[in-house]
């Protein structure tokens, strides 16, 4: 029931996420950061059961770090996404990770930002905007209508804020706080999307 969604421009990408951890009828935690910064130019937002989310995102992060140590090169955004897909697909027929992900990042090689959408079956797709879970039913249309080629980062952030307003007016779940992470040439920046 986690809400994660993101939008991607030419040289920026923003991923947003609610911060609640729910179990049965409780909210266990109100301030959980579900967006992991993989390095200085890549973020991985996961939704799903807490344990799978933790296990998968940390496994990926550590392995990407190891890869960077061994080769001296950071993987590109697409290569990292493909690696995550492979690991998810490998696990699918054994002990599947129930995680849906958005992978966002900035490629220093060609100066482009990229956003990838991936579900727990291992469907991987590069997108300009994406959402997971129930939030997708509400948010996808808002993203579609507000997206423009060459839109600025400010427009992107405003679009995400519109998404959150929509979720707060129509979605039954109580998700009081949202966190966002912006990836640009300068690195990763955290923003509070609920003012």
């Amino acid at each position: 029931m986690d809400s994660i969604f993101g939008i991607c421009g030419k040289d920026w990408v923003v991923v947003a996420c609610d911060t609640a951890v729910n179990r049965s009828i409780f909210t266990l935690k109100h301030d959980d950061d579900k967006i992991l910064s993989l390095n200085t130019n890549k973020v991985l937002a996961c939704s799903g059961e807490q344990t799978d989310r933790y296990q998968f995102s940390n496994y990926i992060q550590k392995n990407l770090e190891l890869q960077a140590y061994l080769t001296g090169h950071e993987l590109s955004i697409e290569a990292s996404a493909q690696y995550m897909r492979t690991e998810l697909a490998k696990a699918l027929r054994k002990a599947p990770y129930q995680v849906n992900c958005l992978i966002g990042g900035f490629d220093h090689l060609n100066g482009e930002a990229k956003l990838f959408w991936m579900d727990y079956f291992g469907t991987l797709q590069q997108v300009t905007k994406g959402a997971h879970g129930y939030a997708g039913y509400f948010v996808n249309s808002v993203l579609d209508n507000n997206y423009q080629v060459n839109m600025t980062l400010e427009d992107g952030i405003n679009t995400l804020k519109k998404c959150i307003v929509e979720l707060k007016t129509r979605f039954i779940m109580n998700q009081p706080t949202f966190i966002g992470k912006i990836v640009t040439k300068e690195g990763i920046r955290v923003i509070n999307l609920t003012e």
Partner: protein
Amino acid sequence: MDNENFGLAKSFSSAPVLSISPHTNFSQKEQTDIEHELNEQVGTTGEYVSEGFCFKLAPGQDQIGFMRSLKEKAPKLTDFAKGTTTLAFEFQEGVLVAVDARATMGAFISSNNVRKVIEINDFLLGTMAGGAADCMFWEKYVAMQCRVYELRNGEKPSVAMASMMLASIMRQYRGQGLSMGTMFTGSDKTGASLYYIDNDATRVKGRLFAVGSGGTFAYGVLDTNYRYDMSLDEAVNLGIRAITSATFKDSASGGVVRIYHVTNHGKWNLIHDAIDVSELHYQFEQNKGHTGRGNEGKPNKYL
């Protein structure tokens, strides 16, 4: 291709047995020992073998599938009737743990004097909700692992690490019928910290948790009165108040309140061992000027 079936199939060939499958010993194979075979089968699943010992799992390869079909065919066997109220919260002087003491078997109250705080070792505490055996066993197992870590490395493990040990065990046995909802607290170099761990292998660090059937009622009192900068006395009183209120509304919780305090300096203290909740209830109600029988403001029809 190293298993026994391989050897048996090839035993029809004329080649000497040992050259085909050197590991197969036919003389032993003939005296079938069911217990031994079962153990072997379990052993082959590999990933379920814990260090040092192994449980007997359901026969067959698909443990999780077995549990699922068992739940369908015999729901009463797997759904334990359980009820409890346990709570713990962080505040400036450490972590406060408060629990009730009732054990139920369906509608029958089997005990009102249960110890639901498990004293794992001299710096770790765990609470008990769900299956008592699972909580007690695995938290003692963590105690053992912590001691081994201490002997190997010459320093105590952090609370984060100890809680991760428990969460990893829960992950390993996920979907196989364990039942546990625990608040794992302790005190290390960084001070006291609090984790929530359950049988779905959820592990979250947090400031305030309440677990069990009375947990919702406890949350109600805690959330309205909680402050981080409470003194120890205030925290103890809040803990008592929350448990008392929860035991009043939740029939599966009751008995006595026990309070533990985990300090920021690497140890814990038992503050109250047994305060009767029914006495507390009358005390609290009388402080408000009520009788405690709950008949205030109601028409006196039948008297």
